[in-house]
């Protein structure tokens, strides 16, 4: 009964979306106020219906209702509750529903908190948001209905893929989609502005909080996915440049560029058409990601489906959703009046370089992702593009960006003092050089990028600190005044420092982990040990254990250094109930300096077990850096100046009401 209601709710949501997509748009064009005002209740109703459908699906999973097809395919009655619930989005149909839910959440938020948006802009934005909804709701109802029933209902389900039964991966899709789909509202704002024919500082100010929120969530989502891969896949790796990973990385890169260019629009009324373009493209990349993952067009270790008919639908959606706005852009953008002039060496100039580099980096990732497909279509040859390609292109391009990031904040608007900035950054330069020397000393035969990467990371780290200290004039006056200055510094400034700092930390972590990772592999009998980097891993025993829905071989390692035991590690090899493939659960001991990572493989039939251990320096810096970046984004978001609906300069708001 409830699944049917859920299905019905989706249909109702579609009806609402159709109304929301059409009437407010016409209302805005013709000045029919009631039609424009219809957008708000429609958005709220749409959200309510989709939320109901989502809860209905979740209920089906929670209660192990195997009469619903996807519950049978992706759940099992003996699974822990958290994985029954996360199974809701651990499949194609359910995750689509999550996508649409978040789409409607953002629409509802704008409807609720956009009180001092100009009515026309608000109406048009919500209308476009609804158009996207219509596309995805149709896709779901026509090709991927989550509520399809099985009759008769099986007695037991096929179990959620064991790889997905992990807390990190349970939270990864919601976080990622908040990011991905969050940019849809920025997209809608941009298209609405194009229709309006006007982009100004006020627009940029309204858009900023949505940008920040989406960016923060996307950062968290990508980081979660990477952290999961590290913990769960058993290879000590955390990024494989897999098409699906790249699909979530590209919106992040462009989204970062957008965040920075919107700043220029807001402060200097410049870079307008470029910012609009980025707004369209960021969400465009999100849609592209959806297409790549669900159409089966690209082989990936974790693609969702191989259904070409679904692929065609999404392609059509992609073509319309990006094609129409870009056509409008080609038409309208030339008429957007250019803004303030600035010297090339200025903060604006630095931000332009930032955008240029980020856009180019995104293009290289796109190229790398699509190249195998392109080659396959034209020559039939099958190739794979892996980490070496990306490091040689993306990695190299990232270096000037990191260098620039420390200098940019020192530059003034309109005209900046590069010389002065560099003089203040001398300390950072020295530290960076030192880091490079250390890198070469630790491993002189390592990858060439490593010392550069580490130097760039340290440069940015120290440089951001220096800028912060200067801003609060850390060495002038008494502590009370310093504290006062710190307290009154705008949150957005804190946000920037935190985000840049976080990135620096993450980059240092990435360089360390990638460049200095070592491993050892051996067959061990209980009582034997293997050594790595001065650590001794002694296999004490291997026993069988039973979890809620799996059986496992669990090994007990005692790790010691110089004869002192420092840790116990318990890696497992799990066999879940239904799916025949065993999964590895790595045991990790994390310290700020390095991770010790142990994995147990198959028994050799003679009482021994094959084991693999890794030593990964600085890898936990990656996760901490990401966390700091998210904190930075959220801090900026909390800046009162950027909250939509706050009584921002009423004069400006009045003037903007066109």
């Amino acid at each position, binding site marked *: 009964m409830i699944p049917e209601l859920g299905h019905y709710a989706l249909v109702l949501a579609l009806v609402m979306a159709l109304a929301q997509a059409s009437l407010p748009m016409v209302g805005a064009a013709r000045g029919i106020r009631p039609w424009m005002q219809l957008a708000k209740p429609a958005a709220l109703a749409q959200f309510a219906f989709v939320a109901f459908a989502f809860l209905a699906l979740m209920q089906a999973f929670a209660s192990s209702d195997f009469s619903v097809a996807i519950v049978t395919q992706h759940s099992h009655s003996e699974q822990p509750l958290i994985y029954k619930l996360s199974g809701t989005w651990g499949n194609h149909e359910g995750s689509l529903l999550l996508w649409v839910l978040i789409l409607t959440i953002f629409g509802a938020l704008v409807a609720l908190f956009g009180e001092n948006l100009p009515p026309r802009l608000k109406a048009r934005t919500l209308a476009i948001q609804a158009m996207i909804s219509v596309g995805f709701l149709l896709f779901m109802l026509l090709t991927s209905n989550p509520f399809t029933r099985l009759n008769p209902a099986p007695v037991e389900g096929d179990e959620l893929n064991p790889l997905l039964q992990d807390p990190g991966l349970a939270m990864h899709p919601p976080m990622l989609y908040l990011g991905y789909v969050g940019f849809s509202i920025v997209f809608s704002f941009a298209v609405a502005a194009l229709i309006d024919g006007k982009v100004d500082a006020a627009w940029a100010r309204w858009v900023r909080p949505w940008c920040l929120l989406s960016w923060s969530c996307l950062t968290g989502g990508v980081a979660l996915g990477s952290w999961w891969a590290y913990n769960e896949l058993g290879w000590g790796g955390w990024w494989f440049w897999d098409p699906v990973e790249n699909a979530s990385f590209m919106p992040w890169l462009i989204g970062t560029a957008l965040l920075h260019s919107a700043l220029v629009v807001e402060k200097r009324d410049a870079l307008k058409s470029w910012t609009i373009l980025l707004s369209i493209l960021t969400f465009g990349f999100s849609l592209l990601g959806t297409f790549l993952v669900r159409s089966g067009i690209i082989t990936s270790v974790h693609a969702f489906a*191989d259904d070409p008919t679904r692929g065609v639908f999404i392609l059509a959606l992609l073509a319309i959703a990006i094609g129409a706005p870009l056509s409008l852009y080609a038409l309208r953008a030339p008429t957007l009046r250019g803004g303030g*002039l600035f010297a090339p060496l200025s903060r604006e100039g630095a931000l332009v370089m930032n955008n*240029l580099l980020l856009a*180019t980096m995104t293009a290289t990732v796109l190229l790398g992702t699509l190249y195998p497909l392109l080659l396959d279509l034209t020559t039939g040859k099958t190739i794979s593009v892996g980490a*070496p390609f990306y490091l040689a292109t993306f990695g*190299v391009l990232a270096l000037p960006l990191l260098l620039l990031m420390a200098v940019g904040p020192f530059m003034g608007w309109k005209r900046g003092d590069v010389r002065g900035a560099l003089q203040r950054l001398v300390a950072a330069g020295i530290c960076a050089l030192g880091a490079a020397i250390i890198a070469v000393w630790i491993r002189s035969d390592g990858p060439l990028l490593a010392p550069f990467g580490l130097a760039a990371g340290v440069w940015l780290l120290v440089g951001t600190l220096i800028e912060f200290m200067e801003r609060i004039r850390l060495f002038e006056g008494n502590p009370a005044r310093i504290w006062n200055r710190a307290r009154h510094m705008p949150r957005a400034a804190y946000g920037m420092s935190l985000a840049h700092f976080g990135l620096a930390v993450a980059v240092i972590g990435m360089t360390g982990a990638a460049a200095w990772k070592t491993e050892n592999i051996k*067959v061990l009998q209980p009582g034997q040990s293997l050594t790595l980097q001065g650590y001794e891993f002694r296999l004490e025993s291997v026993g069988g254990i039973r979890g809620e829905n799996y059986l496992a071989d669990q090994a007990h390692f005692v790790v010691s250094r110089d004869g002192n035991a420092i840790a116990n590690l318990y890696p497992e090899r799990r066999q879940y109930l239904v799916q025949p*493939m065993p999964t590895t659960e790595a045991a990790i001991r994390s310290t700020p300096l390095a991770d010790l990572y142990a994995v147990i493989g198959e028994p050799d039939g003679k009482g021994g077990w094959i084991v693999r251990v890794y030593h990964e320096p600085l890898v936990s810096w990656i996760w901490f850096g990401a966390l700091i970046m998210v904190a930075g984004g959220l801090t900026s978001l909390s800046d009162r100046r950027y909250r939509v609906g706050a009584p921002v300069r009423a004069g400006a708001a009045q003037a903007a009401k066109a």
Partner: protein
Amino acid sequence: MSRKRLRLYLVLATLVVLGIAATLILRALNEELVFFRSPTEVTTNRPDAGSLFRLGGLVETGTVEKQGEQVSFSVTDLSSAVTVTYRGLLPDLFREGQGVIVEGAFDDSGQFVAREVLAKHDETYMPPEVAKALKESGRWQETEGKTQPAVTQ
């Protein structure tokens, strides 16, 4: 600073960055691409020792042998087979008779040493590249005069 001047600088900067990017990309494409080959291709045209590539096919049943951390097995496309040695943990999805892709190179003694063994996270289907290679080897066989596909031994 006039608008024209500014635009000129912008165009210049764009060209420089794109130029650098293009150079990097072309270099990387030349050096860093990993080609996919089937056992038949490799048997007829032995790649140079040390040249990294991906080999795909089915894991021949009955050929998996483990000696400590070393494991060896045969990868076949039902037409030719290549013996692969690998030092490490096999992925959880690695099974005899299933599709597999191994990345590695031939060493100086003519032995294929795998650096990575990849299995797709889906039990029922094999990587499309492997399926394609099998298909191509089948077709190759047909034009050779309809011999029975090599039954794995």
